């Protein structure tokens, strides 16, 4: 039990730290903040239930006013801003990503975790993100999708990286990759 709680808490802190460290370069030199990569890793490493709990804990602290979102944002205001849909989608994205990683056990972990990240961390997350943007800014789903589409290529790279990182973590610390424990 102690290890479950500390892993959930430390991953919440990791998601925060990934959003706050100076930007890292993706392949092809695209600079990004790695926060959404952190959300994917919560699912692929901790599994559905613990991954979602970890993201919920992260969001709770953001709501309490800690500046933990990428760029030092936080507080209650972010939950009514145009990007609030993404925050609502975060825990569900981690859950779906974790569920797919847990159930798809055939073949390489890098592939299943990568595909799980695409479905959970992009398809599910953008569904919520685009709906939220449409709702707050009074636009149609189509218009909101056009605005958000610019960020999807970077997220596909992040999903591939999440897959590779999960496989490497399973080798480095097998006891801590709970999605395959």
């Amino acid at each position, binding site marked *: *039990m*102690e*290890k479950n*709680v*500390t*892993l959930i*808490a*430390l*991953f*919440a*802190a*990791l998601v*925060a*730290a*990934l959003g*706050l*460290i*100076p930007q*890292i*370069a*993706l*392949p092809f030199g695209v*600079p990004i903040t*790695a926060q959404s*990569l952190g959300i994917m*890793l919560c699912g692929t*490493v901790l599994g559905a239930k613990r991954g979602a709990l970890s993201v919920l*804990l*992260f969001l*709770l*602290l953001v709501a*309490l*006013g*800690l*500046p*933990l979102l990428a*760029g*030092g*944002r*936080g*507080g*209650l*205001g*972010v*939950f*009514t*801003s*145009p990007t609030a849909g993404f925050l609502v989608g975060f825990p569900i994205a981690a859950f779906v990503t974790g569920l797919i990683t847990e159930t798809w056990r055939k073949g390489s972990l890098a592939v299943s975790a990568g595909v799980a990240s695409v479905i959970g961390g992009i398809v599910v997350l953008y569904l919520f993100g685009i709906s939220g943007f449409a709702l*707050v*800014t*009074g*636009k149609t789903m189509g218009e909101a999708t056009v*605005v958000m589409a610019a960020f999807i290529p970077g997220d596909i790279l992040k999903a591939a*990286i999440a897959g590779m*990182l999960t496989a*490497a*973590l399973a080798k*480095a*610390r097998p006891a*801590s990759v709970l999605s395959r424990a």
Partner: protein
Amino acid sequence: MISLTSPVRTRAHDWPAGLKLAALCVATVLLFKAQNLWVHAGAFAGMLALYHLPGPVFFRAGLRALKVLWPFVVMLAIYHLVTWTPYAGGVILLRMVTAVGLATLVTMTTQLSDLIAVVRWLATPLRAVGLKTTYLETAIALVIRFTPVLLAKGTKLIDAWRARSPRRPGWRIILPFTVLALDDADHIAEALRARGGFDAMET
């Protein structure tokens, strides 16, 4: 780290946090229901007046907190000018800025400890049915304590990369970064168990 709370103490700090949160919920629901431009203009002016009340230092801190919205404001303004729907655009823009502004106001004028007390109060039904909320409270404390620790470790990893490579730090450093977090989780779990674990904590 940047603080989102107010640099000056205001009268609103003494109001009960639960009441402020409830009022914020009601205000946000009403804002999203209202479709009249003048209602939104009034709400916007009211929000600005609230920011003005505690003085200029508070007002400037509030503006800084709301600055993150400007890309959205510019984008929406251009969209509604191009499609020539100024009335709808005005409603949407004012509503967005007022909603975020009011929520930020609650964050600025409420201490973290008061908000944690609200979370603990909200969890009362869980304790009543016998669930331990110590897990949640410990986890909150751990995240607050370890985010700066991990941030420092991540910054050191980036420095180590920069000392050895002329290129930008790449995604590869996320692997050792995550391993460090996993190892920290292991060590803390061990330290908690050595002190009796969750069973030894008072609920």
